[in-house]
Each structure stands twice: as structure tokens, then as C-alpha cells.
């Protein structure tokens, strides 16, 4: 009942938060923080750093809340801010540079049918290099198109595609290794 009420009053809550009502701000934070920390954790290995970025992103959410036009979903808007914050952090702090290459790997269609736990998935993603991880997350998890990723990261569409193909190949290699580990063959 309470959750439904909160959802119903989302607009009202946002309006209150715009006026720096700390209670409303805290309600918004409590509602979205766990999900958003999960999003940040996808991009950033270190949980402490991920939390720091989530906090700064929430700061941006509250300072720019008056610009939210209630057109799309509020969660999607916050999520986008989180992702942008993560990307800028990685690009500035980790100094990730994308080398313009357009080499692709053959698509392998041997779909792995096994189920993975969230921890395993996070482990697999964590083991990708920063650049690969970023593009894999943006394309496979967030569902951005290659041209969107290209503009977001200020790279060419071809680079985005080739990076994704590199990431996928590496991920599949890692999955096989993980599977072998789980099966006890390695």
C-alpha cells in the first residue's frame, strides 16, 4: 500500500524535492539508491568508488530535478545520470582511450544454456578491460544503439561495434573458463 502511494505521489515528491524538502529527497534516495548502486557497480569494480559516484550522481539528480519534464520514467532519467557519471569517471580517472579499429570477430552461435548467478555475471563483467566493459554494459545491458554509444563516448560507430565484438569474444572465453572451473575440469 505504501509503495503504491509513493508511486502515485512521485510527481508530488519530485516537486517537494525541487524545493529542497529534505524528507522528499530522502524518500527518492531510499527508493532508487539500491538499484542505482547496482548500476554503478556494473561499470566500476570497487564498491566504495561505485558508492561515491552514486552519491555525486544523486547530487546532480537533486540539483537538476527542476529540469525533469515528467515525460519519460523518473527511474530511467536517474539511471541515465548515473551512467553518464560512471562514464565520465572512467574516462577521467582511468584515462580509458578507445583506439580506432574496426576488426570484428566471427559471431559464435554456440549459445551457452547454463544459468549464472548475479555474482558470476558481475565477476565475468569485472574481468573485462575498462573499455570493453563500458561498451558491453551500454549495449548489452542498457540496450543503447551503437550510434548512441558512439556519441556518448565520442568515438566512431565502427569502433563501438568492434569493441563490442572484442568484449563478447573475451566474455565467451571467460565463460568457458568459468564453466570448466565450476565443473571441476580445470
Amino acid at each position, binding site marked *: 500500500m505504501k509503495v503504491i502511494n509513493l508511486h502515485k505521489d512521485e510527481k508530488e515528491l519530485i516537486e517537494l524535492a525541487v524545493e529542497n524538502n529534505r524528507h522528499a529527497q530522502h524518500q527518492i534516495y531510499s527508493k532508487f539508491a539500491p538499484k542505482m548502486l*547496482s548500476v554503478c557497480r556494473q561499470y566500476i569494480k570497487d564498491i566504495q568508488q561505485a*558508492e561515491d559516484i552514486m552519491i555525486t550522481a544523486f*547530487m546532480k539528480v537533486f540539483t537538476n530535478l527542476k529540469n525533469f519534464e515528467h515525460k519519460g520514467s523518473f527511474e530511467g532519467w536517474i539511471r541515465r545520470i548515473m551512467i553518464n557519471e560512471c562514464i565520465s569517471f572512467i574516462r577521467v580517472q582511468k584515462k580509458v582511450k578507445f583506439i580506432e579499429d574496426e576488426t570484428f570477430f566471427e559471431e559464435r552461435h554456440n549459445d551457452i544454456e547454463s544459468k549464472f548467478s548475479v555474482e558470476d555475471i558481475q565477476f565475468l563483467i569485472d574481468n573485462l578491460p575498462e573499455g570493453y566493459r563500458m561498451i558491453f554494459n551500454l549495449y548489452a545491458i542498457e540496450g543503447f544503439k551503437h550510434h548512441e554509444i558512439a556519441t556518448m563516448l565520442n568515438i566512431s560507430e565502427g569502433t563501438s561495434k568492434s569493441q563490442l565484438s572484442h568484449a563478447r569474444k573475451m566474455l565467451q572465453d571467460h565463460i568457458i573458463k568459468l564453466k570448466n572451473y565450476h565443473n571441476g575440469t580445470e
Partner: protein
Amino acid sequence: MEPNKLEKQFRDQLNAREIQPSAQAWDRLDAMLSVAEEKKTRKPFGFLFIAAGILVLVTLGLFFFNQNDTVISTPNTIVGTETKTDTVQNPTEIRTAPIVESQNQNEVVATSDVQPKTNNNVTLSAVEGQQKRTNQKGVSISNQSVNNQNPIINRDKPIEFQNPSDIAIKDLPKIQDKKDIYIKVDNTKKIFTSPNRDELLLAELDKVSKQLTDSKSNIKVDAKSLLSQVDGEVEYSFREKMLQKINKNYQEVKVALANRNNE
């Protein structure tokens, strides 16, 4: 290039995941938000604060500028008077030195020859007399008079050296000197017939020099007292003005506050 089944599984599972942030996370965000709020609320007043600060600085600057001006102006006037006394003092000092020299020359002459001695003495004493006159005449006449006198004294020098060797050549400058003497005699109105002319003239010179030194010391005392007097006056008037201003402003502020409170 489409997302495969595995990636779908990844997406679903990751989107369903929730990681509880630490308890301090909200506190930190709260602190950041309150800091941002403070900044925002301060902004409209910020301009007022800046304007007030500038005003205070400008008034302080003007205050100190004016204070400095008054302080500087008072010594300037005193310095002016002091320089005047200096001009008076310097020539006397300069003059006394050559006079002594001329006296020495006279003595030298006295040992060498009798006849020219009197003449030379006359000329020198005349010159001294003239010097005295110039000294007495004006305080403002300083370097020019000294410069004028120096050549006369210098002119005596060659005459003295010529005294023992050549009498014929010596006579010519003597006549010139005598001419000078006559002119000076007219000016000074002195009787040269008396035998103790030199002593009289020397005595007079001493008197004049004493008078000059006396006057000099008097001026010095005056300058000091003047300085202290003027300083005191200026300080007093300035202090009074400032106190009045402060009192006035205080009263204004008081009235303004009272009015505001009444409203």
C-alpha cells in the same frame, strides 16, 4: 550483432539486482545537499555582502588616504621654512671660511712687505665689509653673493704672490682694487683714515657673525615649536572631525534601526 540469450539473461539478472548502500551514504549526500543549499541561499545576499565589503574598503581607503595627506602636508610646510633657514646659514658658513683665508693672506703679506700690506688690508677689509653688508641686507641672497665675492678674493691671491717679486705689475691691480674700495666705501660709509681700521672691521665682522648665529638659533627654536604646534592643531582638528562623523553616522544608523523596528 543482436544481443543473444546469454546477454538477455545478464541484463535481467543485473537489472533485478539491488545493492544496499552504506548508512553513511545518505549522511554524505545530506551534507552535500545542505552545503549546496547554503550556497544557493547565500547567493542573493552574496552581492549585498560584496557591495558592503567594497564600500567599507573604499571608505577605509579614503580615510587612510586623507589621513596620510594631512600628515604629509604638515612636514612639507615645515621643510620649506627649514630650507630657508639653511640658505641663511650656509652662506655665513661659506663666508666665514674665505674670510679666515683672506686674513691669513693678509698676515703673509704683512711679513713680506709694508707698503702693499695696508692696501691689501684695505681691499680685503672692504671686501669683508661688503660681505657683511650683503649678509645684513638680505637672507634671500645666498649663493650669488658668495660667487661674486669669490672672484674678488681670488683676485687678491695673484696680487699677493706678486707682492714680493714685482712692484710695477702689482700697482695695476692695486688701482683696480682701490676703485673697488671707493665704491665700497660709498656703500659702507666707513672712515678709512683711522689707524685701527682692520680691528674695527674685524670686530664688526664678529658682531655680525654673532648676530647671524643668534638669529639662526632663534629660527631653529621657532621651527620646532611651530612643528609641534601645527602637528597638535592638525591632530586635534582631525580627531574632532572623525569623532563628529562617527557620532553622526551612529545616530543615523540608530534612527534607521529604530524606524525599521517600528515598521
